């Protein structure tokens, strides 16, 4: 295996980590409207991810930075090509971060309601748009000989891509509902299970069609294996959820996200951004990669620091392992 293959795997790992973690974050954000019945319940949901959402989001920044370092052309083509969807994602992530931090800082109804609306929409839109973006990456887009995307923004919203967006949206919301049932206590915990059951069925149907479509279009033996794991894990998660085994349900919903994203990367390899314009214009792990020196350097850095990150992020989840319910939500902060 060559270094640029290793880096393809590492980039995949970073995106998988990102979608596993921010997947349930986005799900929780969407559920503040689907599941929570009042302000106290909304606060319960928001606080299940309170201490961790920021660290989860860094997986995206790292995926972006690592792509810049290891595959500069991939980074350049992707971000200049998918400009407007990414702009919307950026705006959402900006508003979302501020919304979490500022919502409780003023004790005014309107202020809090506005930030709650913001949390819902800025979680829903990226959850959908990331699916659109990845469907386009895997399927291929109009890339010219200079490695530039030459299609229009509307070309990015093909039926296949929209389906991809719906898959990530429903899958993340399902994953979030399972997370909510794992992290809360009281009435909301039971309702989270019920919502997860319904969302899981929708996600299963959509994911089967989308992953099957991907497999038929450009699948390999490996991607078929990953797809099988994803589908089985989704079924297992639904079953565990039905039985009230929340730890297992979350393990399997997480595995579903991991296997589904892995399948997309397996279907993509050895391209990183296929061109639909033919020629030899596809970006591949070979022609988009950095020099061996940079790849080797970054491999060492990643090998040292990624385990460290997993260690202290894992510890954070342990520190905040306690379930929370409405009784744990403190009275609104006074003006201090």
């Amino acid at each position: 295996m060559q270094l640029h293959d290793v880096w393809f795997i590492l980039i995949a790992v970073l995106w998988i980590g990102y979608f596993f973690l921010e997947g349930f974050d986005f799900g929780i954000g969407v559920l503040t409207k689907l599941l929570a019945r009042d302000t106290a319940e909304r606060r319960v949901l928001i606080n299940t991810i309170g201490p961790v959402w920021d660290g989860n989001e860094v997986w995206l920044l790292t995926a972006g930075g690592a792509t810049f370092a290891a595959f500069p052309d991939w980074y350049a083509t992707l971000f200049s090509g998918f400009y407007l969807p990414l702009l919307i994602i950026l705006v959402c992530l900006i508003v979302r971060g501020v919304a979490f931090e500022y919502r409780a800082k003023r004790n005014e109804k309107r202020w809090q309601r506005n930030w709650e609306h913001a949390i819902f929409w800025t979680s829903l839109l990226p959850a959908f748009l990331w699916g659109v973006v990845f469907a386009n990456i895997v399927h291929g887009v109009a890339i010219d000989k200079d490695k530039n995307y030459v299609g229009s923004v509307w070309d990015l919203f093909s039926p296949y891509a929209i389906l991809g967006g719906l898959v990530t949206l429903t899958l993340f919301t399902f994953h979030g509902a399972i997370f909510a049932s794992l992290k809360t206590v009281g009435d909301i915990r039971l309702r989270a299970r019920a919502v997860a059951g319904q969302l899981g069925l929708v996600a299963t149907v959509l994911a089967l069609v989308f992953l099957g479509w991907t497999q038929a279009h450009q699948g390999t033996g490996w991607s078929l294996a990953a797809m099988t794991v994803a589908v089985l894990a989704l079924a297992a998660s639904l079953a565990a959820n039905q039985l009230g085994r929340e730890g297992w349900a979350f393990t399997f919903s997480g595995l579903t996200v991991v296997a589904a994203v892995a399948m997309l990367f397996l279907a993509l390899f050895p391209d990183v951004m296929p061109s639909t314009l033919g020629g030899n214009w596809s970006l591949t792990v070979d022609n988009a990669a950095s020099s061996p020196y940079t790849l080797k350097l970054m491999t060492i850095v990643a090998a040292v620091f990624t385990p460290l990150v997993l260690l202290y992020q894992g510890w954070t989840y342990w520190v905040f392992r306690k379930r929370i319910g409405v009784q744990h939500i403190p009275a609104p902060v006074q003006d201090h």
Partner: protein
Amino acid sequence: MELSVAHETIARWQFGITTVYHFFFVPLTISLAAIVAGLETAWVRTGKEKYFHATKFWGKLFLINIAMGVVTGIVQEFQFGMNWSDYSRFVGDVFGAPLAMEALIAFFFESTFIGLWIFGWDKLPKKIHCACIWMVALGTMLSAYFILAANSWMQHPTGYKIDPATGKAQLTDIGAVLFQNTTLVVVFHTLTAAFLTGAAFMVGIASFHLWRAKREGEPDRRKVASMRTSLRVGLALGVIAGLGTAVSGDSLAKVMFEQQPMKMAAAEALWDTQAPAPFSIFAVGNVNQGHNSVELEIPGILSFLAKSDFSSPVPGINDTAAAEAAKYGGKPTDYIPNIFVTYWGFRLMIGFGMTSFVACLIGLWTTRRRLFLAPEHRTAEDEVPKLMLTKHRELSPQLTKWSWRIGILTMGFPLIANSFGWVFTEMGRQPWSVFGLMTTANSVSPNVSVTTQVIALTTFTTLYAILAVIEVRLLVKYASAGPNTAEQPPATDPTLRGPSSDEDADKPLAFAY
């Protein structure tokens, strides 16, 4: 406007606006993280209540600020690819490495430990809780280091070769990128300036509370105690950081004279090579004729800044431009940056930065320790200090009033200085994005339409303006409320294993969104 020019202009405006905006929050985040860490350490070690209240108070302001720093930083990570794809393709092999390291090493650090710190008051033993904020502080500084190493490479590319097959830059020596002298002095300068910014922020807000307490007569003495300590910490830090900013600025100028003579000539509007070269106090230049129409200067000082003696020649704009044109082709005027912006940016940076340093120096003297004061002028730790000129002489009521007011005003000065500093150093490098290797004009994304760029520029500007209003109002609210002196630290130090009995099962969280 010609299309390619519009392309470059809009992309530059977006970069300028989003970056200057981001950099309002960065220096405050860097310095306040360390200041809060210091205050919490003081509380953990001494158990004194005033340190606890100060930690909570500055911590709150720090969090309001870092939230904005974090989210505006996301844009920075991605706009290279969005607006500057040709730049990204050309430099990614070199420039991407420090960026990826920043994310993997620094961002994870700060964002994970900040979560632990915010929510961990009742979950972590206080020593570990305190260690978390130190981790955040370390993360912010590491982050600054990596991004400044990347920027320094744009100012002075090193440790690379141009790949003959692709014509792109390739990293050959990461040590040269991370530890070149440009990086080291820029990091020193930026960090000291960041601490000056945080110090002035502290001085301003503490002055506000102390001055209000003095006027009201019947103040909350615990609030006064924590604000008085904050004021002294801020003043001392401001003096140290201000000195550091001046010293590092001088070293940086010497490095720039050597590596980017055009930038320094532009900083001085020095059109013709002179020996000895004067330092300009005021000038109005005429770019087309290549000389100043009005000027006021001090002889010899510029030579000293550049080479540490009063007579060395300093190359002027015209000679430097001609040399660059001979080397890279084109007309000499292609290589002259915007002189008005660089000249005044340089002056305003120094002016605002050093004003806050002097203000801190005066403040440190007038609020000095009891030991240096006559007994009748000494004040208790929880009283508003008298502003003392000499051992026996207090400042007149008028001067006292103005001193406190200036203390409050000082808060904004380093922020202004920082912005002008960045505008100066980035615009002074023009027409280059990577000095000597790639021009800014050739860096933009060729496939992004002007319409798309205008949408993005409008979106970011509008969003940032709205968020600025929200942020500033929130800061004013919390800053003017002052520390919540009714708040008490947890009665028992939490253990990592958590409470063993079920008694605490329904206890509300110490902090919740």
